[in-house]
């Protein structure tokens, strides 16, 4: 099997619009969460959300290209430009090689709602405009990135709920391991508009701690009361090791293991067995001792049952070994389809800069989180291997293990 490495990263998130900005936000423990008054006017139980600026791409992309892009495709474009630049890839390279694209995305609600509103109001489908169909398909991110960057390898959207981004990277790694692709642009994107999460708010999944937005996302804390929706996009360039060496690429890390499983039970409530299986599979495929893992980036979203069952799963696998476990969602909220990819980047930034960001708002453990080592203050620590979990609705689970290079 071929070795798989990461040679570039790029991000557009509530913690920053570049790797440097995001690193600084992680280091200082800055929260990206705000209270959105528009959501309250719309009747949301919770108006809490991550704050993301939609990039203005006028003058960068043509009018026609922009017309086909919903917000998450714009985030993904910016993240991918940064990732390709950092990987030393230019358009000439993309034009001459069959570079693949696997990106996590599991909704495109806003353009679909707008098109339906137009049809209902105007009784004329032409007035939806040319972009509506391309913006409202689930594959909108991959169809847009693929055509903008002229990518001619595999081109697929991975829809695995809140594990989409993680599965995209894992599946990309598998395609490279088996020699089917030399390089794949992998990542995850998440729209942030109110329509996209209105029905999610409706099942009481969100924190209502509106008097203190920055305190609302509190994974593993005893007093957590739900997640805070976030979003943006994150891109990693996944590449075959020898290929990266040959072209003199900056080799940042190696993807050692990808584990996956499905719970096959409840649609929203996770169990312990499924995530445990994903963890075990990733570790086995990585071929390492669990003692080599220096940091665990948890999926923990700040929901009661989710965090509890993940804490149990991590304890099942790691026992009393004291490895720092944090959820960066304490700062970002839940970036959903993007989360698996962004959390690889957050973890990479920590690994490259010798620190572990605080699990902010972790003030009191519950019975299960008390068994884990969860720092609520930043730790200055060198580590060379981390594990990242992503779990999603329907019980889909993904675990990635990455080693520094």
């Amino acid at each position, binding site marked *: 099997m071929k070795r798989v490495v990461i040679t570039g990263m790029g991000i557009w998130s509530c913690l920053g619009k570049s790797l440097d900005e995001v690193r600084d936000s992680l280091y200082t423990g800055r929260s990206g969460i705000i209270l959105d008054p528009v959501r309250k006017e719309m009747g949301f139980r919770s108006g809490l959300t991550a704050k993301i600026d939609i990039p203005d791409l006028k003058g960068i992309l043509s009018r026609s290209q922009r017309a086909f892009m919903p917000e998450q495709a714009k985030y993904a474009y910016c993240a991918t430009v940064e990732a390709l630049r950092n990987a030393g890839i230019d358009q000439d390279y993309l034009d001459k090689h069959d570079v693949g694209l696997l990106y996590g995305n599991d909704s495109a609600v806003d353009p679909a709602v707008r098109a339906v509103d137009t049809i209902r109001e*105007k009784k*004329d489908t032409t007035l939806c405009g040319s972009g509506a169909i391309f913006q409202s398909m689930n594959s909108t991110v991959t169809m847009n990135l693929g055509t903008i960057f002229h990518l001619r390898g595999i081109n697929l959207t991975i829809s695995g709920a809140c594990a989409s981004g993680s599965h995209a990277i894992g599946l990309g790694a598998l395609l490279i391991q088996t020699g089917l692709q030399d390089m794949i642009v992998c990542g995850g994107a998440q729209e942030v508009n109110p329509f996209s999460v209105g029905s999610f708010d409706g099942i009481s999944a969100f924190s209502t701690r509106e008097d203190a937005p920055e305190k609302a996302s509190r994974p593993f804390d005893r007093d957590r009361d739900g997640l805070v929706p976030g979003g943006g996009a994150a891109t990693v360039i996944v590449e075959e090791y020898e290929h990266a060496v040959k072209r003199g690429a900056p080799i940042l890390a190696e993807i050692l293991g990808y584990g996956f499983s499905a719970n096959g039970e409840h649609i929203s409530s996770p169990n312990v067995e499924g995530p445990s299986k994903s963890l075990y599979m990733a570790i086995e495929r990585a071929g390492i001792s669990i003692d080599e893992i220096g940091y665990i980036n948890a999926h923990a979203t700040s929901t009661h049952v989710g965090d509890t069952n993940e804490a149990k799963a991590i304890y099942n696998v790691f026992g009393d070994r004291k490895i720092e476990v944090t959820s960066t969602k304490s700062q970002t909220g839940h970036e959903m389809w993007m989360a698996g990819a962004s959390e690889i980047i957050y973890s990479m930034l920590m690994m490259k800069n010798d620190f572990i960001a605080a699990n902010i708002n972790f003030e009191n453990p519950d019975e299960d989180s008390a068994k884990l080592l969860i720092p609520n203050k930043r730790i200055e620590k060198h580590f060379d291997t981390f594990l990242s979990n992503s779990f999603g609705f329907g019980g889909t689970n993904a675990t990635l293990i990455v080693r520094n290079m």
Partner: protein
Amino acid sequence: MEKKELIAKINSVLAEEFEVEESIITPEANIKKTLMLDSLSLVDMLVLIESEFGVKIQPTELVKVQTFEALYDYLAERV
């Protein structure tokens, strides 16, 4: 709306939406070539005209509206 005023508005909104210099829009010029419209962006011109002038042009009627002058006349009769 006076026709002169209507023409000025049509030129202005089309130039802004399709990101061309307004000076290249002349009465006899072909709309698709001047605004660099393909079959998809042509749909967006119909959306723009409906939202700005309240006039729906059916795609099948476009064969009669090839030049800007034809567009001015078409809208002048309906605005």
